[in-house]
């Protein structure tokens, strides 16, 4: 899946990758690779500005640590980020159910 198809979903993917605990940029990329079965075709370098954008928005927070003598920036979800992820997840599930229903010719279950 290419970057253009991910527009609008990248934030949710990044937030989900941080749901299990703090991760640095490359670990976020690895988590995305793992959860998408390696089908995510996104220039790795573009993940870092996206993480920065989420940090500016207050959805994640970053902190520096030293690993092997090298400084590394780790990110973790804020409470606002957790709420945002829940909202995005629910929105996606509704959207996916609607599109699946339309494509398969069956009625879409109404959201509760």
């Amino acid at each position, binding site marked *: 899946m290419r970057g253009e198809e991910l527009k609008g979903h990248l934030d949710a993917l990044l937030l989900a990758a941080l749901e299990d605990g703090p991760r640095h940029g490359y670990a976020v990329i690895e988590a995305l690779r793992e959860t998408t079965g390696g089908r995510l075709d996104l*220039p*790795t*370098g*573009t993940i870092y*500005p996206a993480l*920065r954008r989420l940090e*500016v928005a207050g959805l994640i927070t970053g902190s520096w640590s030293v690993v092997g003598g*090298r400084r*590394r920036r780790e990110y973790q979800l804020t409470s606002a980020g957790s709420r945002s992820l829940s909202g995005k997840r629910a929105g996606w599930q509704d959207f996916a159910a609607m599109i699946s229903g339309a494509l398969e010719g069956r009625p879409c279950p109404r959201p509760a």
Partner: protein
Amino acid sequence: MSQASLIADYLTVLSAQLPAPLVEELADGLDETHQHYLTQGLTPGAAACAAVAEFGEPQVIVAAFTRLSPARHAARRLLAAGPVVGGCWAAALITGRAWTWPVPATVRLLFGAGLITVIGLLAAAAFGRRYLSARRAGAVACAGITVLDGVMLIAVVLAIPVLIWPVILAAAASAARLTFTAQALRAVLTG
């Protein structure tokens, strides 16, 4: 080209256009990517090529960070607030008959030149495509706004015998902008 020089060249391109902490984080990620390919059995040279290719075009990364730059955001807000504060001062100066104030022509000219320079710097920071240039322009513009607002506030205290409401409103607008500018300047310098 050796793998070390390939990665070093890539980071040099980024270093010339982004602040050190951002480059440091990208360097860590690039090194991790390189290590990932080495563990997959690629030669060091091939792993470096693959890592650089996976990271993507440096200009795309720089452009993405520039769009998020604190200088750009601060400059756009200050440009948006400029007509409001300027309008308040225009009303205050007309109401207070500013042309009768004992302000030397040289000072008036210097103030006008300073104002035009600050607007130009804000535009450069708000719409520039280079992170570091936008940061420099934004920082100087913030400092310039501080000086200009400070001069206006001092002029009000020294030159106007009786405070009238348009002047009070304009002074309050300048004081609010000074507060915002101080916070923005800190973000611009650290961002």
